[in-house]
């Protein structure tokens, strides 16, 4: 009796604490369940229908997913998104790492440079995309063409020429995100103990050797994180593409129609919400697979201090 007494009271205490804990969790859990978790399953359900979300709900099974593989517009949008990821992630990483490395030197005016490089990141995408629309203006009044003219180079119709449209989208995105990645890299660089560099200096190591033998391996967790976040983020690009080319065509000859833009056009342009839901799931599957691949291929090689 005397032994089981505390056991009963501790079980009662646990039950009371459980009840109390869920009261604290309830507000967040209700919202997350209603607008994030349940909708993820509801999306799967919707994707089995041909529906305008109103009266018409025709069950079509997996037809929407089968259709995806034959839909040249979808495949095109996927290829465009792939180009965008390849066009923004490696250049963006290299430039932001370089900028972080520059700022990590003993320099004056660090705060000023850091602020200048970071500023684009705090601008609302719609507003800044409008500015870039005019930077890319096809005549001499566009900023980019005006700069090229200073160097005697020929201007381009950046937004109207299918050969340049994707480049224009990528350039603006690299510009806008550089500061964010730079701050993360800078924090990563400052985490590397100076002792390593001092030891290497005694051994006669110089700039580039120091970078490849010390900085790069010790920075790999940061690089890995930035890669993951950049790739996932780039796959979801929408607003820039929407503002720069608002029509459903998605840029000259559809050259900048990205997956989310296509999803939006299919859903809110043509009211084919079942198919739009399937596109959302396809995007999810691709991001999920890429995350797994990155984790297994790259993650295992990340060097932790």
């Amino acid at each position, binding site marked *: 009796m005397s032994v089981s007494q505390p056991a009963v009271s501790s079980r009662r205490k646990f039950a009371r604490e459980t009840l109390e804990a869920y009261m604290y969790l309830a*507000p*967040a859990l209700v919202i997350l369940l209603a607008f*994030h978790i349940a909708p993820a399953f509801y999306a799967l359900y919707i994707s089995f229908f041909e529906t305008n979300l109103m009266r018409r709900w025709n069950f079509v099974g997996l037809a929407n997913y089968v259709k995806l593989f034959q839909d040249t517009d979808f495949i095109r949008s996927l290829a465009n998104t792939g180009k965008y990821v390849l066009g923004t992630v490696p250049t963006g990483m290299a430039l932001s790492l370089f900028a972080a490395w520059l700022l990590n030197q003993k320099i004056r005016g660090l705060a000023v440079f850091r602020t200048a490089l970071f500023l684009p990141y705090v601008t*609302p995408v719609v507003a800044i995309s409008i500015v870039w629309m005019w930077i890319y203006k096809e005549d*001499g009044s566009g900023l980019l063409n005006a700069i090229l003219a200073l160097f005697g180079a020929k201007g381009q119709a950046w937004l109207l020429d299918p050969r340049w449209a994707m480049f224009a989208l990528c350039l603006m995105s690299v510009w806008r995100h550089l500061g964010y990645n730079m701050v993360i890299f800078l924090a990563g660089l400052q985490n590397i103990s100076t002792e390593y560099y001092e030891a290497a200096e005694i051994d006669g190591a110089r700039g580039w050797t120091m970078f490849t033998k010390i900085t790069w391996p010790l920075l790999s967790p940061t690089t890995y994180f930035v890669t993951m976040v950049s790739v996932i983020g780039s796959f*979801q690009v929408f607003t820039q593409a929407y503002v720069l080319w608002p029509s459903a065509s998605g840029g000259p000859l559809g050259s900048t129609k990205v997956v989310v833009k296509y999803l939006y056009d299919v859903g*809110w342009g043509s009211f084919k919400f079942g198919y739009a839901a399937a596109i959302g799931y396809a*995007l999810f599957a691709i991001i999920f697979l890429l995350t797994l691949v990155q984790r297994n291929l790259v993650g295992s090689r990340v060097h932790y201090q």
Partner: protein
Amino acid sequence: MIGMRKTVGRGLVYLFLVIGAVAMLLPFYYMLSTSIKGPEELYVADLVWFPKHIVLKNYADAWNADPNFPRYFFNSAFIATVTTLLQLATSALAAYAFASFEFWGKEFVFVILLGTMMIPDQVTLVPNYAIISKLGWTDTYWALIVPWTASVFGIFMMRQFFQTIPRDMWDAAQIDGCGRFGYLWRVMVPLARPIFVTSGLFTFIGGWNSFLWPLIVTNTAKYRTIQVGLSQFNQEFGTVPNLLMAASTMAIVPLVALFFMAQKQFIEGIARTGLKG
């Protein structure tokens, strides 16, 4: 020799930084300088780098061209503020439960929540739109605010912080007759102030910048946000660069001002979340 090498190296560092900073700031200069140009300097073949006449009236013209601008600004500020406050509240409560309670299903619930971070917003776009329509929330503040009042990331960040507060503190508080909620409200929350500021800043900026969701759940100017209003303005006045640049400047300035006020928290917040990843 080495001294000279160092000087040259230092010079190169500054050179690259200056070029980089100029390149990054040039679009802002272009925006500001275009926003004060008159028509005679706009519709010419070559870019006028330095406007001769400053036409500040463009700002008033842009503001008056869409009579709903004040409304858009108010909506964005209102939605971002309310979302931020509610998200901080729900996150703090949930994080407190995870950090300080022993309860049934704790691990399970936490893993499920972290799992939802994998789901991109685009997956839930169609179903959430359907849910909002069914609730009759289209074109209301409910639609713009409620779905974003909880954030797994916010819960996670706060839990990480709450866990660093030693348990002795709770024991001491209990002796002083402090209850669970009193402890959260009077001890944990004040200590976590920096986390609240950082997390709140990101939510506010996210709310101010959000576009796709407000675009699909609003139909009338009454509930449109500044981003949606601006994109509409762009489609209507797409050929009038000075008005567009003036309107863009007005949409950008509040955020840039906020950034300058809270620069330290902002940069540290990014650095911290980036490392924890």
